[in-house]
């Protein structure tokens, strides 16, 4: 039995709700993260880990108002208002990485959630039902990228008796889209200001600071992107994919800025590995509980040089005009609106990163990504990029047929040689 299994059996499987809500637990976790036992691949990872441990600790211990957010909620808004953002979809990925997802998914099934629903959300809801999530003071969801978040947050809102707010991002290109969205973001800010006791002037100051930090992070993120485009960069996509949590949950914090600054510095220092590896793009997310697919990719002399969700797709914002700026950031996201926007974005990424082949991981229950996969595939094929669609599940390891998936992946990789 490996170390991971030992640790899981000894500690993680025995976690109780009161443990994860205790100071001792978080103190131990933070000590472990700082200890020599934790040897992250990149220095920047140490920054992000410390940040997420601190914000999770604050959320679980109820140190200040906690706001649950889905993927596209701009965390600058939450951080700027002095609240702690908590992203349950990311938490579900962490739970899956620890091999604990089946237990919570089954719990969600017991209370009536269908197996046809997204396992990120079922896992998150199972955790909430069993008391493993931090109590939210507000649940804030935007209506993209998928229907699941506003709907599952509504159930969680009932569990905790906390209000849910849904922000309706209007379709891109429609009259008044930015002002209508900015007004909703301002309304959400007013609710959070009441939670944190912020005055009007403190709200604007907080938002200006958060947006300024986010802009700095964006500058460094773009440096990272340029380095990754140039050659066979040493940052592999399977590791970079975890950066989705940094992009979603720390923009607007010092840690977000420092993460991308350190990563850019380190990538420059380490230089390029060189080589003539096959360059792959990964679309949607990965199975968090298994590295098997990535081992197969590596064995075939291929590298993931680019992933769908970890790139900048917005312009620097105006700290003096936070709501319009944030509306532009999320309203212009490629996952908002018709799939042609996503397909066009991915085709551009593929071109910029000189992709040889693309893999779309169809996460079971994800209507937004699976539903558009065929059109995305065609858009890429029109650019001459071979594309493989793999059906699987990012969170529920019981729905992952490694042998079958690997066989298809191997055949695809061989065809690229």
């Amino acid at each position, binding site marked *: 039995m490996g170390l991971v299994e030992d640790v899981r059996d000894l500690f993680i499987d025995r976690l109780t709700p009161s443990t994860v809500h205790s100071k001792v637990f978080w103190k131990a976790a933070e000590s472990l993260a700082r200890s020599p036992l934790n040897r992250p691949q990149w220095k920047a990872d140490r920054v992000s880990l410390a940040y997420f441990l601190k914000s999770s600790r604050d959320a679980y211990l109820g140190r200040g108002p906690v706001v649950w957010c889905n993927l596209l909620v701009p965390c600058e808004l939450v951080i700027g208002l002095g609240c702690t953002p908590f992203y349950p979809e990311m938490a579900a990925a962490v739970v899956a990485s620890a091999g604990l997802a089946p237990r919570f998914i089954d719990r969600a099934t017991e209370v009536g959630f269908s197996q*046809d629903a997204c396992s990120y959300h079922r896992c998150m809801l199972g955790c909430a039902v069993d008391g493993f999530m931090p109590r939210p003071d507000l649940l804030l969801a935007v209506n993209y990228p998928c229907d699941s978040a506003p709907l599952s947050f509504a159930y969680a809102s009932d569990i905790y008796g906390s209000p849910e707010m849904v922000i309706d991002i209007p379709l891109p290109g429609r009259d008044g889209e930015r002002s209508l969205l900015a007004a909703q973001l301002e309304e959400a800010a007013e609710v959070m200001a009441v939670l944190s006791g912020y005055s009007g002037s403190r709200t604007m100051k907080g938002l200006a600071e958060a947006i300024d930090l986010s802009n700095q992070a964006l500058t460094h993120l773009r440096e990272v992107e340029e380095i990754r485009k140039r050659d066979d960069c040493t940052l592999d996509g399977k590791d970079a994919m975890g950066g989705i949590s940094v992009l979603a949950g720390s923009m607007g914090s010092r840690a977000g800025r420092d993460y991308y600054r350190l990563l850019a510095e380190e990538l420059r220092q380490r230089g390029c590995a060189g080589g003539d590896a096959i360059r792959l793009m990964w679309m949607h997310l990965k199975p968090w509980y298994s590295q098997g697919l990535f081992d197969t990719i590596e064995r075939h002399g291929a590298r993931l040089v680019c992933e769908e969700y970890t790139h900048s797709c917005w312009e620097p914002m105006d700290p003096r005009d936070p709501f319009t700026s944030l509306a532009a950031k999320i309203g212009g996201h490629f996952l908002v609106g018709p799939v042609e926007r996503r397909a066009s974005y991915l085709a551009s990424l593929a071109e910029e990163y000189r992709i040889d082949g693309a893999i779309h991981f169809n996460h079971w229950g994800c209507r937004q990504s699976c539903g558009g996969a065929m059109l995305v595939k065609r858009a890429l094929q029109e650019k001459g990029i071979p594309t493989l669609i793999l059906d699987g599940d990012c969170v529920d390891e019981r729905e992952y047929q490694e042998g079958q998936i690997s066989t298809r992946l191997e055949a695809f990789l061989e065809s690229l040689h």
Partner: protein
Amino acid sequence: MREDNNVAWFCTYTPLEILDAAGLTPERRFGDPASLESADIFLHPAICPYVRACLAVAIAENGPHHAVFVNSCDGMRRLYDAWRDRFRDDFVYLVDLPRNTGSGSEELLACEYRNLVRELAGAWGREVTAHDLVEAAREREERRLAYVSAAEGVYGEARLRLAMASHTLPLHATLPAAAGGGGERGVPVLLTGNLLNPAGLVRSLDRAGARVAWIDLCNGDRAFSSSTLPRGDDLDGILASLAHSYLDRHPCARMSEADRRQDLLVESVEAVGAKGVIYASLKFCDSYLYDFPRIQKRLQREGIPLLRLESDYADGHVGQLLTRVEAFLEML
């Protein structure tokens, strides 16, 4: 300018009054549940079967395939994507729909309606006037009232077919006569969910001895349960009023109004004297997958018996459900 006036629609949040006022003939599509697999080359099999059934039929039919979609759920958005990609020369338009109610959402929706009016004028060269819209809304209200009247004493499959005819028949056509329907003397129940095949699961409820007195489905009573008759003098005012009316309707589970939806459901149970609720929904519809546990809790609190069924739209499996339905009805 386009000459063919037929426009397909799919979601009951489609503002039919605007399409009528533009001189078009909106026709609701229900697809063919038996052939939905032929849409698999465009849409993943884990997407709403209604969506796939509609696309499957369109692929097999000659055009034009003008269509107006509503951005109500991932399934509808994906159908719009596939339709637009497949029928590039036709008028294919997506109307946004907020999840929230209130003044900001009404403004957003009214803005969408103004966009639709403009797009229709661009495509067909017909300007919608305030008078056109008021007249169209009046006729839609007449159709709604005609359904309500015709549905009196009609149950189950017959009632659902009548509702669907009210959606598909041209506005000036007379609704077909519908008689009692199966299960007239059966156990009164309320059916709730998204959209069902009348010849599948709903027919099996009749056969099992249910008297489905109220059909809270997207292709059932829900769209006829409240008026969308707008007020106002000028076009903008009327569109704003129409937006208010649509957001004020008996809500679909995708709306952020779960409490109101539950209250209306409980009120309907009492109003029609239903002894229980059958919650039946198409697979892969997230709005209803996440809605069920909340409805379950509420009905438990109210002491209203509940049975959950699932449909793949073709409903080849309904024979297996019969025993469960019969046991439920017996228990009632």
